[in-house]
């Protein structure tokens, strides 16, 4: 068990260090997500009825597009100098590589969300302290990145990986995105925990199912 966590942390630490050096993912993803939120804010008058209706969708559109941009880079960096082969030569189970990469993708996306969400709430005149929203974002991001990391590995071996990733994985994550948008809508409307329980259960079920599936199939995705 110690070797498993040691491997996961080593990969996570390496990805973090690479990103701190280059800042190529964080910068592009953050700028893109901010632009989406700001542009939609201009399109829909803040505080109006329309804004209240579309706000949850706008927030998740920003996260999805930013997430796809970031996930595209998850395994693309491992193709340079064939370092994915270097990782695969390490004496760890294949799923350790998956979990290490997932930890990185999940953290990067959470960092972007931590910055974007307050900006979004201010622009749309919504309250800043929403614990329910934090829970929805964390759980839905886990589901989104768990599938995205798997498909990032799959698309990294294709020529048109930038196009292949969204085509392959967005249809799969539709259930978690719909549940996330609906749960966010409940939170922004001032609903109770009970009101969003069904949506949270869907998100948690999605997270568990796709985490287990991804761990099981990852070795078949990365091996020839």
């Amino acid at each position, binding site marked *: 068990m110690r070797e498993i966590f040691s491997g996961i942390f080593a990969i996570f630490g390496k990805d973090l*260090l690479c990103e701190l050096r280059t800042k190529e993912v964080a910068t592009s993803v953050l700028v893109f997500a901010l632009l989406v939120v700001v542009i939609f804010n201009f399109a829909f008058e803040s505080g109006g009825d329309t804004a209240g209706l579309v706000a949850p969708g706008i927030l998740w559109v920003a996260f999805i597009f930013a997430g796809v941009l970031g996930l595209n880079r998850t395994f693309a960096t491992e193709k340079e*100098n*064939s370092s994915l082969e*270097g990782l695969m030569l*390490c004496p760890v189970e294949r799923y350790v590589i998956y979990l290490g990469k997932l930890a990185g993708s999940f953290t990067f996306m959470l960092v972007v969300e931590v910055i974007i969400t307050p900006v979004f709430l201010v622009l749309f005149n919504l309250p800043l302290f929403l614990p329910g929203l934090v829970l929805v974002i964390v759980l839905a991001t886990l589901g989104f990145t768990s599938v995205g990391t798997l498909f990032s590995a799959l698309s990294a071996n294709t020529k048109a990986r930038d196009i292949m990733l969204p085509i392959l994985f967005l249809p799969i994550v539709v259930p978690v995105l719909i549940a996330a948008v609906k749960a966010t809508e409940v939170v922004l409307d001032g609903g109770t925990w009970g009101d969003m329980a069904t949506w949270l259960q869907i998100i948690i079920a999605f997270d568990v199912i796709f985490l287990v599936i991804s761990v099981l199939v990852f070795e078949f995705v990365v091996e020839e």
Partner: protein
Amino acid sequence: MNENGGPSTEWAIEARGLAKSFGNVRALEGIDLAVKRGDRLTVFGPNGAGKTTLIKLLSTLSRPSAGKVLLEGLDIRKAPERSRSRLGVVSHSTFLYSNLTVSENLRFYGRMYGVTNLEQRIRDVISQVQLLPRLQDRVGTLSRGMQQRVAIARAVLHDPPVMLLDEPETGLDPHAVSIMRDVLEPFTSGERTVVMTTHNLERGLELADRVVILHKGRLVYQASRKEIDAASFRETYHRCTGAGT
């Protein structure tokens, strides 16, 4: 340990009926190969002969379509993690991260291999490849030859008993090749078992205790180095492969 967890065999590597297909293309077919502990095997063959595919199968990077590989008696498909911990692989790709420094790259791989006393070990291996002054430099700022020397340090960091070298001199200029030979020498001698693929007949013979030639995915020649006349080996190679080198 053998595949049943028993005592070790005298063979470092045994390949039995090894085959690999990509769709309808047979990259390797019916490869039977045995390398004794401490022996150095050179695999020759023209482009597309299946040399890299063979290294990928031996190193668990690829699954065989048929047959099996035993590493020190251990079936590598049944115990892939234990097998990989006993392998060091140097390829024409370095497997290094160009944005990280030499020490950060080695520290990362050292953690993945569970190397004890890691900082000292990093200094030892990087000294052996004569790059200690560049330890804190980013890999991307090093020349191709230096990067390949860091790749050797990465491969031997966990002191593996078996080394697989897949055309390690590809893309290097003659001066870098010469330095590489000096650097590789201590890692490929002694009790370590070495399998190397190369196009370079002279270099391959120089290193080998045993030689095999692959052609179109099949093993068409194998002999002990002692049985080979270096002067006429080029002719043998041409006859086996029907191609120049």
